[in-house]
């Protein structure tokens, strides 16, 4: 055996390591991992980007939770996506600008507090006030007085929106800046959720364990790893949860979530990794869901650049659109989890809601000969070539960018006509786009906030609209959108929006590529799994065997 003092030091070090190890082991065992209770849905989750506040959550992962713990004035039907009254008893308006909202009786928050008109008005005022730095504040920009509580520069000159007035316990009125006939239908968005007093009185405490008025209550929330929700038995709505709870587990990699589903460790994944799309039907059979979601991918032209916006260039823009073989790309790269786009909206809107297949016409149909002719007629590509820019850190963007460029190059018979410009991170890409540094085509994805044709057109193509990155501007388009917003008859309004969309087909400021589907898979433990129009699982309907 080893002897001497030095050897003892070695032994001591090993002992210290062992003690350290067991100490680490002991601290790690607090969570009580593994066995979930019966009737609980174990679902995959991503780490939400921000603290979970209704007006501060603008991405899907946080949105999932809000959808479980909150109910607003309206709710979008999980199947059709149509806006239906939830907490709203009625929303009246005589002029499409002043609305009177009556809140249903008998609703409470999970902590017993009544949901009143004030619960909404307080929440909305909080969301709009610039001091609270809520990322969804702009959803309240249509309400009168927004420029006072949320000035573009400087401090707020008012704490509350002048357009919101509480009339009595169950009634409040809203005055908008301009006419907006479909405004009530936007109220299903999570940013319009009511908030209990606890939110304002103990904000930090509320963020640790949010309290809402939906069918689920948050039991525990460990940031970055998991959230446990259980059914709220006192929930007054008719969409009570049909399972006893949901356990959301954060996965850093959707491949691991899929592996866990196969191993029986997980019941539901709502993002099938692209590498598995080929096997998923064999693996899961009819427990694989692939259905349209309210997402469209486009490539946008920088219309602020003279080279792209001068007269005649509309032919080049249309020509480029015709040079893209959408059918082939969606089939080969995406295994039909994308559908070639033929308008600028999404199939989830339905025909009545404003989706119109084929509205784009020939301009969105692959025709290499015509594409080449149009581009030559329009004066050719600016500088003889184009690039496509996108971030490549997520969404396998690199793959389709290469494919689209190949398609364009083949159509034009020129290997150097189109090249890709990959940007490392989403943040960097967003910055370049926001700073108008793009000089050629760039990707733009749009996930709807609410299932309205307005949401697919106005924020993106109206002059100086919030997400109009290409700075497209067309007076006639603007006029038609204004007209549609002022129209009280929904059918007529949709028709007018589609007239506006036809201008996009002629001008082609953005090339529609494909509609994105939601894809999900689930274990044999579950029945009644479906995705809503936002490609989020409808958790409350899921039953556990």
């Amino acid at each position, binding site marked *: 055996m080893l002897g001497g003092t030095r050897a003892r030091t070695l032994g001591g070090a090993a002992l210290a390591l062992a003690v350290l190890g067991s100490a680490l082991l002991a601290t790690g065992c607090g969570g009580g991992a593994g066995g979930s209770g019966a009737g609980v849905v174990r679902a995959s989750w991503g780490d939400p*980007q921000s603290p979970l506040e209704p007006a501060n959550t*603008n991405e899907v992962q946080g949105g999932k939770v809000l959808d479980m713990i909150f109910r607003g004035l309206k709710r979008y039907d999980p199947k059709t996506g149509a806006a239906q009254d939830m907490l709203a008893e009625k929303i009246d308006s005589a002029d499409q600008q002043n609305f009177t909202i009556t809140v249903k009786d008998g609703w409470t928050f999970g902590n017993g507090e009544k949901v009143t008109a004030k619960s909404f008005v307080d929440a909305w005022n909080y969301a709009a006030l610039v001091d609270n730095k809520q*990322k969804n504040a702009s959803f309240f920009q249509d309400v009168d007085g927004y420029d006072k509580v949320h000035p573009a520069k400087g401090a707020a000159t008012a704490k509350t929106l002048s357009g919101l007035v509480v009339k009595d316990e169950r009634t409040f009125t809203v005055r908008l800046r301009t006419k907006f006939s479909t405004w009530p239908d936007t109220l299903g968005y999570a940013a319009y959720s009511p908030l209990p007093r606890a939110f304002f009185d103990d904000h930090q405490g509320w963020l640790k364990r949010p309290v809402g008025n939906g069918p689920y209550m948050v039991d525990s929330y460990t940031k970055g790893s998991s959230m446990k929700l259980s059914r709220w038995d006192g929930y007054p709505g008719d969409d009570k949860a049909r399972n006893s709870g949901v356990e959301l587990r954060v996965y850093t990699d959707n491949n691991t979530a899929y592996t866990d589903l196969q*191993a029986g460790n997980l019941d539901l994944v709502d993002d099938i990794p692209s590498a598995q799309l080929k096997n998923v039907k064999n693996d899961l059979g009819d427990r694989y869901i692939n259905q349209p979601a309210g997402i469209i991918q486009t490539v946008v032209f920088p219309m602020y650049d003279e080279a792209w916006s001068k007269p005649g260039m509309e032919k080049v823009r249309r020509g480029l659109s015709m040079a893209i073989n959408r059918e082939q790309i969606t089939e080969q790269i995406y295994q039909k989890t994308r559908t070639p786009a033929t308008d600028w909206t999404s199939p989830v809107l339905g025909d009545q809601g404003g989706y119109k297949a084929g509205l784009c016409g020939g301009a969105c149909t692959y025709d290499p000969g015509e594409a080449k002719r149009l581009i030559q007629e329009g004066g050719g590509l600016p500088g003889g070539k184009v690039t496509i820019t996108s971030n490549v850190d997520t969404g396998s963007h690199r793959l389709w960018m290469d494919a689209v460029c190949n398609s364009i190059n083949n159509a034009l018979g020129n290997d150097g006509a189109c090249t890709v410009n990959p940007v490392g991170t*989403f943040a960097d890409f967003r910055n370049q786009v926001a700073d108008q540094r793009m000089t050629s085509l760039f990707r733009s994805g*749009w996930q709807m906030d609410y299932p309205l044709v307005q949401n697919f057109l106005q924020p993106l193509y109206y002059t100086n609209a919030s997400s109009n*990155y290409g700075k497209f501007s067309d007076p006639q388009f603007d006029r038609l959108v204004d007209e549609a917003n002022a129209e009280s008859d929904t059918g007529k309004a949709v028709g007018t929006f589609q007239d506006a969309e036809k201008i996009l087909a002629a001008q082609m400021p953005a090339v529609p590529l494909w509609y994105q589907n939601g894809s999900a898979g689930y274990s044999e433990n579950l029945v009644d799994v479906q995705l809503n129009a936002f490609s989020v699982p409808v958790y409350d309907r899921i039953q556990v065997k």
Partner: protein
Amino acid sequence: MGRYVIRRLLQMIPVFIGSTFLIFFMVYALGDPVAALFGDKAPDPATAARIRKDLYLDAPLWKQYLHYMGQILTGNFGTAFNGQEVIDLMADAFPVTLRLTLVAVLFEIVVGITLGLLSGLRRGRAVDTTVLLLTLVVVSIPTFVSGYVLQYLFGVKWGAVSPSVSPAAPLDELLLPGVVLGLVSLAYVTRLTRTSLAENSRADYLRTAVAKGLPRHRVVTRHLLRNSLIPVVTFIGTDVGALMGGAIVTERIFNIHGVGFQLYQGVLRQNSPTVVGFVTILVIVFLLANLLVDLLYAVLDPRIRYA
């Protein structure tokens, strides 16, 4: 010895300042993180400006750095975008990764040195050739391949272990990920041990030991192995730091919420407090591991002295 340790600790200060500044500069150079917080929507200028002011992003770089260092000295590592204190993130992540590294290093030491000893003592024979071949195979397979394959075999096909690690990450669940993480280093440890043994087996002192008639196991453990372990210990020491930082791939595959996961999220969201904070701690771990290696030299070989 004591003065040597103090001198080494003092040397860490400039290294620490220099490395944090470099990391800070690199994360800063990635650009403004605020725009990405708004997703596909254009950021609302007033809200974005407030968030920037809150995160101290509206100041010039040197001011941001001084502000950050000032905060660190008071034990405040800033706040991640999701409202969590970075220090809390560290308290959650570092023990997990430390456990994972511990498994990997123990695996490396035990299996690596044993294999190296076996093949080193039987040079040129079947055992030696097999070990050399095996380590060659292991070195040439990237971690993400071995990770996914072993995860599929053990986790899905045979159902022996859970394919993903629960948030608490107890040691038994970390065995497989630890082996995956330590696999490549294991091959290096094996080969280093073997070569070092081969070299020292021809040394004078060993011939003396054999000539004295010492029993074989005493010759091997006390004279041959102990002297041959110096390069191996150097490697393992530096490897501790490398493993902690390099766990990013393994942690992703097995869904371990450790340092790698937080770093990945931090880089993806360009969250400088997270990235700089975590890397700063990693730098310290690296420096301490190196110090420990240097101190271990004295234990292994008394001829190495410190002034």
